[in-house]
């Protein structure tokens, strides 16, 4: 069973988001990394880029498949986790902790509430 963390919010495209000292930290879910298999390459966005909600901010590639990364919310990319670029399988090993991908600054942190709650996301992946 894939792990779904209680304190995180989720998207239908299998990203997670969490309030990180006023920024939104974003990554992909345990379910996503499991279905992809070992991630071998990742394309990351540049710091400073402005993302629309649901816009593509990067790509993860496993041997067998490729998957776009969608921004859960609109905002500016302010931090990028470059260690997942050199060692992409960190995302497989630790999707919710060391395997975070970007941090964005949003206008209103309350927008997080518009995303899927853990229960809703669990339903989505079990369905």
């Amino acid at each position, binding site marked *: 069973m894939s792990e779904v963390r209680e304190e995180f919010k989720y998207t239908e495209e299998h990203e997670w988001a969490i309030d990180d000292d006023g920024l939104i930290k974003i990554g992909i879910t345990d379910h996503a990394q499991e279905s992809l*298999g*070992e991630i*071998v390459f990742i394309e990351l966005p540049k710091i400073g880029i402005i993302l629309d909600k649901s816009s593509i901010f990067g790509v993860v590639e*496993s*041997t*067998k498949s*490729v998957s776009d990364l969608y921004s859960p919310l609109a905002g500016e990319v302010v931090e990028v986790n470059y260690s997942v670029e050199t060692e992409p399988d960190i995302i497989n090993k630790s999707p919710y902790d060391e395997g975070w991908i970007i941090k964005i600054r949003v206008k209103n942190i309350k927008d997080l509430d518009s995303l899927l709650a853990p229960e809703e996301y669990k339903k989505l992946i079990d369905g």
Partner: protein
Amino acid sequence: MKTTPLFEIHKKMGAKFIDFNGWQMPVWFDDLNKEHIKVRQEVGIFDVSHMGEIEISGKDSEIYVDYIFTNSVLNLSLGQARYGFLCNRLGGVIDDVIIYKIDKERFFMCVNAGNTNKVFQWLSDNSTDYDVSVVDLSEFYGQLAIQGPRAIDYMEEFFSTSNVGSIKKYCIAPILGLEEKYKNQLEWGCPHGNNFLIARTGYTGEDGFELFVPNEKIIEIYKSILKHFSSKIQPCGLGARDTLRIEMGFPLYGNELSEEQSPVDSNLERFIDMDKKEFIGKAEIKKNMAERKVSLIGFKMSDKVIARSGYEVFIGERKIGYVTSGTYSPILKKGIGLAMIDSRWSDLNQINIRVRNNYKEAQKVSYPFV
């Protein structure tokens, strides 16, 4: 969707499944790259029971097979196998197959899962002028591939009474030990009596074997192999099968081969015997050889990116072809693949491949890639 007899065991083993030509098959168990490397270095086992098996027997078998197959057949010795194509009259590929000569009047053909019905129909339609019988044995046989540099040691140990070590590469033999063990135990027997066959063939580029065994006994045989070698033998899915064959530059039907294209387009003329008097499609293939409009090349990506099948190939702004197969190579740790390009450009050393609207540089390299 169709499943093989090993579906339930694989589910319990935690396999991830994909739909492959209407078959629900394991794509990987735990880690595709680990499975791949295990096959290159030691040994892996694949369930390939979705593959089809067709038998051709009768007085005219040899001349019939010679007529429907692009490669030479008349010079095969007993038990010897040969890879080649079944082509239509326009030189397009009906299927790519391995043909095994079991005896003078009996040939065994291993065909692609998605093509089995089509091939059987086509073989039957083209057999009317010959004294042969064409039988589809795909329901009867399951198939296991045991591949890797140590496959020979493992199989010699496992079939200690069957002398499998003496089977030469690209040859087939009955598994006498199993014939003896399951004597009078089979609900369905194969019409010709060879219920258990072992061939020193494969699709990984490594030494290895393919076992053709009755579906009704395959669970038992598979379990006993896994039990005997425990963690020393790696169960592998179709994911590793695909990355292994791409590293070797082996074609896959549906990617490099189709009914619309000649095998010459994929540079596979070494499996076509133009010295034969006749075979179906020969006249058109001869034209393809003279024209050579397209060519299959191998490429290696310069950046950390993977070009996948269908991606377009460019020289500057000019589109010159497309990727037929592409993957991450677990051995080279790079994106590699095969592309079919306009042959006027086949001498160039560098191409660009459009990956998500970016033009990524790739070097033309010869294959096998490893």
